């Protein structure tokens, strides 16, 4: 989508040359002059026609644009080579705070399908881009070209049951939006995306269905594998920077006993850090997890003071080099967590390090 058809700018001479060479234009007149005029008229008409045609969609692939790269990865699995997918935000940046660059408007202008996480995750930057996109396929919330993937998820966690206000920090009134970190939600997301693709592109329905079945099969197998790896560590107490790991903890059976942010969006103050350290020592918290885009000094310090391990983990596809698919993301997260916890239990059990 970064290349535009510049046929509007092709000169008459070049176009004449193309026409003559392709032998598609047959001018009956014998005289050279009238033939030239005829060519001129034909090329002018063709050029104006092409100007309108080239502005519209020529590619046969469905153009999918997503707000975050994890949705792009899932859309690629389901759509295969019938879709062209582009993610706006990068996997290593905070999805709450993305600059609404005008270049994103160009991508949204050409999109056939827009996928976004919803639950106000992208509310700081996506709406203004959608308004400027001039694309009626995505400007209305109910159009088939626009899918809020949070509507596909069965269990949204942390839906507030009291009236929210901003004294609670940067609260999401519809629930916690970081649902992609539970791989079972990946199944529901892929299902919804496939359904929507079948609606937009009914010719390839069987293809999308097949790819969906294949993806779900592989994901199921992998989920069992990850379950097995995480099973011995169920019930481990952990602390995360932001409330972004609640779905992962729910699946893996971890207990989140505290957060480095005193309230969502508020950086830690020294008093809060001290309180957290005390709590962590009491509850013997083993693991501190923070995404790489958060300041790393404070969580590392807190981990050191309490004897926990600090892990900087990616929370999106593309959050680190080599994480290119949904499977890669969980492979990295599960492997790092389990190897860290394994090392910790080993060092606890080994008598040398603990002095007897």
């Amino acid at each position, binding site marked *: 989508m970064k290349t535009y058809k510049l046929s509007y700018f092709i000169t008459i001479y070049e176009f004449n040359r193309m026409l003559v060479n392709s032998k598609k234009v047959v001018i009956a007149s014998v005289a050279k002059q009238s033939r030239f005029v005829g060519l001129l008229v034909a090329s002018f008409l063709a050029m104006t026609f092409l100007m309108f045609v080239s502005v519209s969609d020529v590619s046969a692939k469905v153009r999918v644009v997503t707000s975050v790269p994890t949705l792009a990865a899932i859309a690629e699995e389901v759509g295969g080579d019938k879709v062209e997918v582009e993610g706006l935000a990068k996997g290593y940046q905070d999805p709450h705070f993305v600059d609404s660059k005008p270049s994103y*408007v*160009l991508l949204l202008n050409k999109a056939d399908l827009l996928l976004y996480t919803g639950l106000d995750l992208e509310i700081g930057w996506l709406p203004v881009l959608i308004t400027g996109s001039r*694309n009626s396929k995505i400007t*209305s919330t109910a159009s088939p070209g626009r899918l809020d993937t949070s509507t596909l998820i069965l269990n949204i966690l942390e839906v507030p049951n009291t009236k929210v206000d901003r004294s609670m920090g940067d609260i999401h*009134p519809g629930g916690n939006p970081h649902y992609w970190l539970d791989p079972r939600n990946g199944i529901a997301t892929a*299902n919804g995306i496939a359904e929507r693709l079948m609606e937009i592109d009914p010719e390839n329905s069987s293809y999308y269905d097949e790819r969906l*079945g294949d993806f779900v099969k592989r994901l199921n197998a992998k989920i069992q594998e990850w379950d097995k790896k995480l099973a011995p560590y169920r019930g481990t107490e952990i602390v995360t920077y932001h409330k972004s790991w609640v779905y992962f903890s729910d699946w893996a059976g971890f207990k989140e006993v505290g957060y480095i942010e005193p309230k969502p969006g508020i950086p830690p103050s020294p008093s809060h850090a001290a309180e957290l350290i005390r709590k962590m020592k009491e509850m013997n918290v083993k693991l501190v997890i923070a995404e790489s885009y958060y*300041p790393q000094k404070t969580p590392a310090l807190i981990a050191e003071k309490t004897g926990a391990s600090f892990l900087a983990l990616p929370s999106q596809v593309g959050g680190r080099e080599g994480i290119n698919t949904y499977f890669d993301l969980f492979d990295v997260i599960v492997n790092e967590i389990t190897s860290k916890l394994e090392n910790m239990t080993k060092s606890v059990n080994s008598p040398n390090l603990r002095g007897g």
Partner: protein
Amino acid sequence: MKIRVAAGYLGVTNINRRIILFVFAFLFFSPSVYKEVWGDESDEIKKQMQELRQQMESMQKKLQELEEKNRKLEEEAQKQKEEKEVEKALTETAPPPQPGFLQRFVQSLNPDISIIGIFSGAYFTTDDPIVHAEADPENTGINLQEIEIGFQGVVDPYFRWDSFFSIQREGLETEEAYATTLFSLPLNTQIRAGLMRSKFGRINLQHREFQDFVTLALPAAYFLGEHLNPVGAEFNFLVPLPWYVELSASVNSPNGLETTSFAPDEDSNNIGLLLYIFHISNFFEVTDDFSLSLGGSFATGSNGTGTENRSNLYGADLFAKYRPLKFSSSYQEVWLQSEFMYRQAETPEKTLDDWGAYAQLIYRFAKRWNSGFRFDFVDTDDPVVPLADDVGAENLLRVIRQEVEEEEAILGLLGKELRYAFMLTFNPTEFSRIRLQYEFDDPDFRSSYSAVYLQFQYSLGPHGAHPF
């Protein structure tokens, strides 16, 4: 006698001879004898063996077929099991068909309402500071800069509506109230119509709460006023080039504008004297971390000083932002915003040439802190005293100064003015702000002075994101 002797010599007797003959015959004829005696049976055996072989082959074939069938059945069973698992997974994770818990928060077709309050404590080193823009702090003490109320929402599938009202102690003023098209138009057009801040340069589009300094930059304050917000219709085209290029053309009426550049003409039914504003904006995403925006603007319209006298306002703007995303603090960023403006204003006596520019550089060194420096100035032509007292428009080309008891009827701006400012901002959250600014103002036409401001700002409601 010889034969008998020979035979006798050999020891072969008659009987022996017969025996030998018999043995030879036996040996000679034995295969056929053998065949004769045993021949039928071996044929039969062969036949039977062949039959057995055939039977074995056919049994093997059947076995193979059965194996094939079994394998196929197993595959089918496996596939069905997998499909069932997939179905189970899909149905287990699918959300309930009827709307559930997410409808718990009340659906409403009301617009988004937001309100923003901007106040600043100020200390000036002079008794009568120049108030360049309406919402700048006016005197030593605590000033109300602006309260902005916004109503925003989607009208229907075709339009959205954004309106903002600016309230100060004296009264309420409409800052913006306009509709934007949402549907696809040819040539990637988007139309905005209503009362709106014009797309002239960059700072004119930035609401007060979004600006980086307490005071408005000098060129904007002098040439555009607090904001250039005529009533008009604006056509915005996305030009089909590989980078973002937006071409903007608008036709507006200058009635009611509080700016020194444009005012209605007495020859007011002349369409050629309406306010026309053009802007081209280029955005280059040079790398993932560095963005550059370059723009040019042109505005022309009557300025009310006389029949068919017009002002032409030219502008160039630059915005560059460097935000390294890959580092652990991806909130660190640096941005530079700079604009240049040049105005030609026709008056009955002569054409005035004024120009001005500003440049501001801000460094956000933490998620909630940023600091910056701004330099701005204007250089104006010598003003003229008009021949007639009554020139029609009120604010025309005059700077309203507090020190003057009655406004002098001059046309033109007062002279050269230079200013620089340092600021430090702390944003407890995205919805509140505290800013400290030191400013030094050096005009040519009077004594210079300094000012210190402490600004505080609060916002309530879902005030949407601002353009980049």
